[in-house]
């Protein structure tokens, strides 16, 4: 009786393990690349930085912001995906698949088209508003009923629509073409310290907001009546949850372009690990999972074809699409 009222263990046992795993991958991301360095060099760069050493400069000035950006967008997209899945009651909702990322990307290039090259803050503002509009649209699409499987289809159509406008704008604009060729398919090639410093606060705030409203969202999704009985304000909770989605997706897109599938895979793995625990616990687990997966995908993209690199979005699609197909298979079998 008492155990059903009291919250269960507040920190899931898998969390420290996951964080340790992410730390290992993070170190690996700093060491591996077009040129591999040992961890000794990392230590030196950290303790006694030699400004003339080229290898240390590569690690500190290029790989470090990039790895931090991977951590940030991985966690942000995981939160965004999980929140979207909770709101639509649909395990297939993902900011990439439903077109929220594509909407944010569209807003960014629209800003580029009308205003010319923008600073990080303006980019963030455009990405945020685009993601917010798309998230509301997704919620409307899902809210109109039609079962688990309509949302991804309508979302894919919407996403391809946004992305074709994105490529149109980018191709019409020779300056943008060179700069955004890789960003368009999702890549960390543009991630540098300035961009990260401007956009990470937005993403982190989105993650915190997501964690903070997770319990209310969960109650609300049990039924609006029940939620109201618990003293919730359905409209307010919903708009906070949508804001969390827009902030996390917007920050991720402004840094790395429309990256898909992290929001699908990380929450799915987290749900398995959390085995029935609440939305908040699942979200806590999804953050390191998403961050670690994104880092791994970025390492793979830089390492597989070095010195050339495979953009993050492509690596993730190659891993994520089969996962998506397996998920659909299991959902379809379970449904009847």
């Amino acid at each position, binding site marked *: 009786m008492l155990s059903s009222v009291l919250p269960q263990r507040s920190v899931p046992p898998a969390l420290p393990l996951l964080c340790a795993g992410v730390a290992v991958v993070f170190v690996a991301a700093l060491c591996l690349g077009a040129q591999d360095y040992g961890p000794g060099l990392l230590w030196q760069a950290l303790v006694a930085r030699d400004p003339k050493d080229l290898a240390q400069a590569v690690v500190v000035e290029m790989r470090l912001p990039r790895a931090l950006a991977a951590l940030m967008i991985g966690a942000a997209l995981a939160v965004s995906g999980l929140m979207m899945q909770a709101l639509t009651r649909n395990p297939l909702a993902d900011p990439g698949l439903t077109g929220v990322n594509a909407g944010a990307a569209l807003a960014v290039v629209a800003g580029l088209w009308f205003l010319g090259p923008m600073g990080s803050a303006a980019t963030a503002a455009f990405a945020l508003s685009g993601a917010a509009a798309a998230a509301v649209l997704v919620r409307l699409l899902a809210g*109109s009923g039609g079962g688990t499987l309509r949302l991804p289809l309508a979302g894919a159509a919407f996403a391809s629509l946004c992305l074709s406008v994105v*490529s*149109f704008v980018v191709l019409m604009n020779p300056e943008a073409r060179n700069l955004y060729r890789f960003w368009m*398919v999702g890549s960390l090639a543009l991630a540098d310290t300035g961009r990260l410093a401007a956009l990470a606060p937005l993403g982190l705030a989105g993650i915190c907001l997501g964690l903070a409203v997770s319990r209310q969202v969960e109650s609300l999704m049990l039924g609006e009546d029940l939620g109201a009985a618990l003293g919730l304000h359905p409209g307010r909770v919903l708009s906070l949850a949508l804001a969390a989605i827009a902030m996390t997706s917007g920050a991720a897109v402004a840094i790395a372009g429309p990256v898909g599938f992290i929001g699908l895979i990380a929450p799915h793995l987290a749900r398995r690990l959390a085995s029935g625990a609440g939305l908040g616990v699942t979200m806590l687990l999804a953050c390191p999972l998403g961050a670690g997966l994104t880092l791994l995908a970025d390492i793979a993209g830089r390492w597989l074809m070095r010195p050339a690199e495979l953009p993050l979005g492509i690596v993730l699609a190659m891993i994520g699409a089969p996962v998506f197909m397996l998920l659909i298979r299991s959902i379809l079998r379970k449904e009847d």
Partner: protein
Amino acid sequence: MRLVLMLLALVALAGLALAAGRSWLGPVEVMQALFSGPEGVGRMLWSLRLPRLITGLVAGMCLGAAGLVFQTLLRNPLASPDVIGLTQCAAFGAVAALMAGLPPMAGAWVGAVSAIILLGWLAAHPREGLAPRAVVLQGLGLALLAGAGTEALILRAGDGNASMAMAWLTGTLNGAGWPEVGHALWLVPLLAPLFTARRILDRLELGDDLARSLGLRVGVLRAALGLLAALIAAGAVSLCGPLGFVALAAGPVSRWLARGRPDPFLAALVGAGFVTLADVLARGLAPAALLPTGLYTALIGAPILLVVLRRQMSDKSS
């Protein structure tokens, strides 16, 4: 009557396509150039614009008909070959073949046929058999996978292939010449049987049980129609890359013209008109930029897609 109007519109568009470009021709000049033959005045028309027009027409017909057939077979107005991954797999096959030094058409066909087999295997349900919605959703995943694969192949091929990359990711008629027309003619014998399938599609739409009781061999017909449609869609992709939204939009538009009935011939005409219009825009609006035709098909197709989505939203049953 509608068919005649559509044909007239297509002829007008074709005339416009011959006239449009970096240097615009008047109607008299177009006729003069056409009748003067490939030598003399008509050289530009005969060597550049005419083959490009024919390639576009055939590709558009293939995509339009294939789109309608898949949308009807899968009972979903969004389920065109470019949404369920067939065109992406065909593009992947064509690019892989091109890099291995093989003919891209063969590669595109292998890609599309393996996509169909893969979809059939992935979507098969132990009891229900092949449910349309399972095919559609698995196809969605397949489309993303094949798109990423194509992009990776192109990146592997190294720099300097940017224009080729654009062709295989968005579709373009830039560079279509008489050799492409020769390839396109191969597709006509595959296209013709689909034009006669109007009755069959009509009855299949009544539902499998009713169609069976009308004496149709539903399973065989579905497989045959699907295979034919996949082959022509892949053929179109091998000609000019995956022109976005043509197959998706031609189906609903042709149904609207035919009062809700599926008519592959009409859909083919709509598709051909669609591609021709997009190409006129691509060459007329910004002739210097050489933007891929696929961008314009996407821009025209997008509003149509929005209408389809809206209808789907208000129709709760699907």
